[in-house]
């Protein structure tokens, strides 16, 4: 029996392990990916102050620290079930069953598929897959591609592909269907673009982002959006063009793109075929919470946090005794926020477990303030009202506690 098992060796899981080891708890971290670091491994971008954020280096720092402190890290191990036991949890994995007195689920996020006809052809991948292939496995995803779906994540990864020398024809929206109705709506996408404009070396977008806070300006910007697109890092970004279908016999050969009206409706007769050999589809992220669900944790739907999230408080505790969550499973935010949440979760676990609790309350308060401060400084925001989502969850937890 270990004091703590942590599922997920990303920024949240590794940071939590470091905190637990500092207080001498026995810690096992498992991760289904062959390398530790989680989504940090794919990240490479320039911050507004000009500094580069190299996720591989950041992951290395956390990993070294956790290893020096003696955390047991096992990669390539998948957890498929969690059972509550009398004095903790049984974590079922493909490498056997691990007993844990306390359990932290830090499984991060998964990508939503945004299907358009032809999306099952070889050569079509999610934008995150293109990132992992390029930055982690160092494999070129293709000769010339197109990105379908314009959002914070796809814009950042498009730039990474560009830096790696992969040619991107453009970024366009997916044609609207029941699944892509939000990602295919130019108005909603403009909202998102306005939020990342501070990162873009484009005067139009920067200026636009200040103006676009007013709804009427946004609507005007959608109506007047340039036909040739707006170039972001040299890549034309189109919000008035949509990919209707992906064509090819055995693999991707081309994409049919058309113009769309401000509501996202295709304009007949404007179809054009663009030869490409790969397509990246960006459907956004949602909290990967299956393990919390099978462990019996209650959920709430909070749009600002990315969908269904396990009920938890600001100390990362769930209503299930001994079960904690941290990182993107609690809401889609940056890796820096995930790391801060991980440290906080680690300290909460220590407080629950350690015999010597001197000074812990103060440290937890500090860690909570740190999460808020990092959130306020975040340069990449996946949802503009993430704060609102976080306070909704705090109230939900209080009500849940009162009711049970």
């Amino acid at each position: 029996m270990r004091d703590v098992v942590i599922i997920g060796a990303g920024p949240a899981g590794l940071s939590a392990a470091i905190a637990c080891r500092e207080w001498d708890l026995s810690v096992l971290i498992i991760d289904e990916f062959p390398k530790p670091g989680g989504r940090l491994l794919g990240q490479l971008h320039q911050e507004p102050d000009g500094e580069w954020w190299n996720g591989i280096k950041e992951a290395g720092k956390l990993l070294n620290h956790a290893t020096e402190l003696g955390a047991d890290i096992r990669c390539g191990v998948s957890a498929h079930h969690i059972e509550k036991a009398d004095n903790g949890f049984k974590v079922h994995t493909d490498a056997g069953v691990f007993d844990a007195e306390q359990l932290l689920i830090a499984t991060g996020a998964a990508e939503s598929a945004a299907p358009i006809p032809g999306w099952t052809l070889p050569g079509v991948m999610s934008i995150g897959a293109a990132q992992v292939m390029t930055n982690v496995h160092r494999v070129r995803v293709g000769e010339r591609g197109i990105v379908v779906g314009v959002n914070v994540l796809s814009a950042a990864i498009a730039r990474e592909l560009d830096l790696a020398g992969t040619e991107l024809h453009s970024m366009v929206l997916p044609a609207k269907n029941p699944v892509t109705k939000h990602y295919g709506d130019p108005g909603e996408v403009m909202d998102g673009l306005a939020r990342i404009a501070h990162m873009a070396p484009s005067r139009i977008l920067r200026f636009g982002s200040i103006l676009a806070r007013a709804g009427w300006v946004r609507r005007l910007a959608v109506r007047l959006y340039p036909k040739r697109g707006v170039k972001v890092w040299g890549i034309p970004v189109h919000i008035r063009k949509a990919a209707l279908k992906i064509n090819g016999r055995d693999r991707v050969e081309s994409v049919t793109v058309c113009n769309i009206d401000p509501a996202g409706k295709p304009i007949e007769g404007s179809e054009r075929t663009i030869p490409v050999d790969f397509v990246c589809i960006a459907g956004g992220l949602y909290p990967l919470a299956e393990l919390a669900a099978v462990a019996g944790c209650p959920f709430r739907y909070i749009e600002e946090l990315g969908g269904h999230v396990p009920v938890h408080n600001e100390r990362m505790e769930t209503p299930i005794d001994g079960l904690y969550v941290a990182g993107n499973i609690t809401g889609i935010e940056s890796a820096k926020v995930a790391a801060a949440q991980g440290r906080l979760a680690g300290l909460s676990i220590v407080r629950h477990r350690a015999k010597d609790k001197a000074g812990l309350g103060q440290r937890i308060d500090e860690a909570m303030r740190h999460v808020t401060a990092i959130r306020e400084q975040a340069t990449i925001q996946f949802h503009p009202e993430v704060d609102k989502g976080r306070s909704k969850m705090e109230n939900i937890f209080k009500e849940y506690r009162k009711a049970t």
Partner: protein
Amino acid sequence: MIICRCEEVTLEDIRDTFHTYKCSAREVKLRTRAGMGYCGGRTCRPAVDAVLEEVTGEKPGDDLPLKVQPPVRPVSLSVLGGDGDHA
């Protein structure tokens, strides 16, 4: 257009099933097997949820729309049928 790759269920299959049986989201899933293939819905779950939300008109509630069942990852029978040896 295919929604669930593992079970090759199309958008039309899901719509037709709902209109034929006027049934719940869960029943549509059971009848079409959308989201019940090898990947356990890991690829298509949000897409299946979105399609079912539109055809049934059910707004997302607090519970996960379609129940999550273990195993949540593809595992071999020998792993599931093992003697529960502790690692």
